[in-house]
């Protein structure tokens, strides 16, 4: 099976589809040496993300091993993750400062 999605970091809970994926078809991605698949439960546009696991409402979406923000609704595995169900949260800059 041909890879049609990319996992950027082993900790990620989404992959990015590099082709259009229709509902009911397989999303195929590589995790290290392993080839993994899941079934898309809705149409995923080119370059968009699909949830690998069930993400609860208010849960974090992880890509590049980092948080992209929080979900505004529960996103079950196989569903489309986009600006419609994911929002950015303000940063806590002061906590990021190093002691000098």
């Amino acid at each position: 099976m041909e890879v049609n999605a990319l996992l950027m970091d082993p900790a990620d809970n989404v992959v990015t589809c590099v082709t259009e994926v229709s509902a009911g078809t397989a999303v195929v991605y590589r995790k290290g040496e392993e080839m993994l698949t899941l079934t898309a439960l809705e149409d995923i546009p080119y370059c968009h993300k699909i949830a690998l696991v069930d993400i609860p409402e208010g849960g974090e979406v992880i890509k590049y091993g980092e948080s992209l923000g929080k979900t505004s609704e529960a996103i079950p595995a196989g569903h489309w993750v986009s600006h419609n169900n994911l929002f950015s949260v303000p940063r806590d800059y002061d906590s990021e400062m190093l002691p000098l």
Partner: protein
Amino acid sequence: MEFWGYKRKEGRAGIRNHVLILPTCACGSESCRVVASQVRGAVNIVFNTGCSDVAANTAMSQKVLTGFACNPNVYGVVIIGLGCETVPHMELRKKIQAMTSKPVVSFGIQDEGGTLKTIEKAVRAARDMAAEAAMQQKELCDISELLLGIECGGSDATSGIASNPAVGELSDLLVDMGASTMMSESIEWIGGEHVLAKRAATPEIHNQIIQVCKDYEEHLKAAGQDCRAGQPTPGNKAGGLSTLDEKSLGCIRKGGTRPIVEVLAQGERPTKTGAVVMDTAGYDISSITSMVAGGCNAIIFTTGRGTPTGNAIVPVLKVTANARTYQKMEDNMDVDLSAIVAGTKSYKEMGAELVDVIGDVCNGKLTKAEAFGFSDVAVDHVCRFV
């Protein structure tokens, strides 16, 4: 690595040898356009600001104008002013002459008695300067003379996955060879600033990177605005970038992994060699304007959705890893990096290939935006016009 460039008495070598026709303010812009169209070897700047402004904005436009004049790709400067602007042509000329030994002349439209008389004098001056510029021979320059600006625009998900990592690899390779690279667009560090700050060469630089992001958000808040309202753009969202954080985490990869040795204000010239960052807007044209004012002699530009932008002084090289965009917009795209997304080449391999591409641009190969003669400028503002 070496390239054939134009050595300057001060600072880095140029990879182009333009005569720059520079307005003091918006009122001189159209005359500059006409003058540049009459003289081969001349380029003009369209400036939408420079007058009727608060002091901080005037300082910003002066930094851009003097920075443009001092850019290594400029042989000499012909300034056209109006006469009643905040910083008149003679004053701007003196400022530039204090910074560089390049030839600089200036004219004022009100003093000369209107557009045609000014244009006539400016064309003669530009023609003489272009004739002299054409006599300057290229010399072999070490790659340490290169200050490569790294920009992205019209990003989509392929940017963070493929084209930005490839350009990050290019940046690492160039820095290892002794060149300098500059990444900007600080609003697109937000959400990834903690990752970027890990590259800081010192704890002070770490905190400067965080502070730049904090200040940017607070600046917009003070005007009742939210950075997350404009970022990501509708095009970014359609291209699969859902939040500012996602865009930023992809964006910062274009700067590579080498230690960040300096954090610069907009239009500021680096004092260190290696990887530096500049606090600019995420608006690509404005960011390029500030980086060119800061002395970058070449710009590499990653895009997902495709963009035509170009700068009159500095060649802008477009690379995309979106195969559809490359095919649809080949007129504007210089390099196809889609093999990374297809999985047939790694971002490291394609980053290494970009070293030769940049070498060609340094040696004089025109980028597509350059061949079209594009001259986009956007000067950032710290406050409304008055």
